[in-house]
């Protein structure tokens, strides 16, 4: 029987199989940030340990940093202390830190790929659930807790049970106005927020193959929202040309050797998955969410499901979600007035996303009642956006271009959506209070979010796109 891409990478990283179905898995790359690492370093200290392979850990400050005036000291004391603790820990252990002010700083899942640190065939972990993003390059990349961060710092290994495997095939072409975010929200609405728990997902099919690396990252990013341990896509020419000449990608003869190896990373045609799903790209429409988990999504022209159309056990959850969101069953969201638009997060804050938004809003102005924040994923994205004049387009449209960080994706810094306000967000989670206590999040693609910013209401972006 053939092997899956996941099998091939996994087997190459097993140090030992101590029994009980567990593997000691070697970790090639470890990303850390200020929020989930301090207790891990404290744990090491308590045990009198040093970081085992400091050169395989890369740090950045992103979750809890301000997105305005990053050159000034952080005002909020606890946040400042957390960032200072990271700086100290990295200095103590010889870990490379791309902190505030560094030209490589940014959201951890944006900078890893952009710098070429993320490469096919690797195992990558980070104390953040959206580590699944890196799987777009054909790696096994998954989020871990702080105890596990400590294990990786101490031994470069983790004790893991091999997950089951699922393949999601999307064939065909995405229609105009439909982008990869819509595709993943669509898949989520079909298989639910727990539909892939316990699985590693491989995404395949012609629709996935024709996507850019940025678009693939958006898909893999949201694997965790289906409960999956990770999501991955076999590397191909798109992957190689994205990585070529990146800062830390292999160079010269190493490049040839690497690409030859990367070309062996695919699922054999006779490999068997524990579960398979097939979707038709043509059926996907621009998507929005109406509830409080990312699986509660509908086409932008659709209506919120009515209680009685749902299985008994889901009705209570729907009622609770709608009460929080201030929405009614059967209601249509198109035309619904909104208050904020957030374009950012590791799901959609890359250059391609900003370009997509700029192209749509060029020469237009935001609705007067809407506040619009665009938070680039990294310093490099920000710099490139400015070099291309995207900042000017945003300024004219009344969009606020901020500095890189997680920002309103999780509302840990000052960037919070006020209670009761509706925010169309390109991030990945619409949980209660995720963007601030009482905030009401509507997840959407960058295109749909940009259109909402201009009209001030939920809009079908397709009506704006001419043939």
């Amino acid at each position: 029987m053939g092997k899956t891409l996941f099998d091939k990478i996994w087997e190459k990283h097993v140090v030992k199989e101590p029994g009980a179905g567990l593997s000691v898995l070697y970790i090639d790359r470890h990303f850390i940030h200020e929020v989930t690492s301090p207790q891990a370093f404290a744990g090491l200290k308590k045990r009198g340990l040093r970081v085992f392979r400091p050169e395989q850990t890369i740090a950045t400050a992103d979750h809890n940093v301000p997105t305005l005036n990053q050159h000034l000291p952080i005002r909020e004391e606890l946040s400042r202390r957390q960032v200072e603790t990271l700086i100290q820990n990295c200095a103590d252990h010889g870990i490379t830190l791309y902190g505030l002010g560094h030209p490589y700083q940014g959201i951890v899942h944006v900078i890893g790929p952009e710098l070429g640190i993320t490469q096919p065939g690797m195992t990558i972990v980070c104390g953040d659930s959206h580590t699944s993003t890196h799987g777009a390059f054909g790696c096994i990349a998954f989020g871990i807790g702080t105890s596990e961060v400590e294990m990786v710092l101490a031994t470069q290994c983790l004790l893991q049970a091999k997950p089951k495997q699922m393949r999601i095939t999307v064939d065909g072409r995405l229609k105009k106005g439909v982008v990869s975010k819509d595709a993943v929200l669509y898949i989520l609405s079909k298989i639910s927020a727990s539909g892939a728990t316990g699985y590693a997902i491989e995404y395949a099919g012609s629709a996935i193959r024709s996507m850019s690396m940025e678009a693939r990252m958006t898909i893999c990013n949201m694997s965790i929202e289906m409960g999956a341990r990770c999501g991955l896509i076999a590397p191909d020419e798109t992957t190689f040309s994205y990585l070529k000449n990146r800062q830390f990608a292999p160079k010269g003869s190493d490049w040839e050797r690497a690409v030859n190896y990367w070309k062996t990373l695919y699922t054999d045609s006779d490999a068997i998955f524990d579960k398979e799903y097939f979707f038709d790209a043509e059926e996907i429409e621009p998507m929005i969410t109406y509830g409080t988990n990312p699986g509660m999504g509908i086409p932008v022209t659709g209506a919120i499901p009515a209680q009685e159309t749902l299985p008994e056990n889901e009705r209570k959850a729907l009622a609770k979600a709608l009460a929080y969101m201030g929405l009614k069953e059967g209601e249509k969201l198109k035309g619904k007035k909104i208050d904020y638009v957030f374009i950012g997060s590791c799901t959609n804050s890359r250059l391609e996303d900003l370009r997509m938004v700029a192209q749509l809003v060029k020469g237009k102005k935001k609705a007067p009642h809407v506040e619009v924040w665009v938070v680039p994923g990294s310093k490099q994205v920000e710099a490139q956006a400015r070099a291309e004049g995207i900042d000017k387009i945003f300024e004219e449209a009344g969009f606020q271009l901020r500095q890189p960080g997680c920002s309103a994706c999780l509302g840990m810094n000052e960037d919070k959506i006020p209670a009761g306000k509706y925010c169309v967000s390109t991030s990945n989670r619409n949980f209660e209070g995720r963007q601030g206590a009482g905030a009401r999040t509507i997840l959407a693609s960058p295109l749909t979010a940009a259109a909402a910013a201009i009209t001030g209401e939920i809009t079908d972006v397709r009506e704006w796109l001419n043939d």
Partner: protein
Amino acid sequence: MIKPVAQPFTILTDTYIPLPVENIDTDQIIPARFLKATSKEGFGKNLFRDWRYENDDESRPLADFVLNNPAYKGSILVAGKNFGCGSSREHAAWALADYGFRAVVSSFFADIFKNNALNNGVLPVTVSEQFLQKLFTQTAEATLTIDLSVQTITLNTTGEQEHFEINAYKKTCLLNGYDDIDFLLSLKEDILQFEKKHSYGYEKENHLAPRRRDWP
């Protein structure tokens, strides 16, 4: 020598706190604004913060939330399916442990949460949906007995019992209060050997991530 790092878990008999909500994500268990700490202590008082208080005001507890109901107490939380989904924050497990929970019972747990809980001596017990629904219909006096060594959970009022699954290695760790780090540290030689033959498809010397000297 492996030494206990957490309180060992053997048999637990206690009343429980029912929370019949599905898909409870870790943002609810501990909202992001409380993740600014650099230590593991004190998260219990912010457990389920936004479900506990009106407008984040400790003097205005929301009466209909179960943690504010003095009738319900105990070191076991019983929650709806897909508990602990979302963010990987281990702070959620720290908050549950700090509040005094030693076990969480549900019909389904999110993966990362399950690991985080186990790494902090909080036992996730997966039961059938039917058993779970039964637990939600009992009175506040009902007690559960969780026996880790034989992997059973019993509703003592009715005597109904279920077997639950747990990885054999993780079970040993919990029974003795060990954690993974000591085990991994004991494999140092294997890891060094592994590194010698591990390849990235290109020259070994170049396989490492950027060092400081590579800064622009």
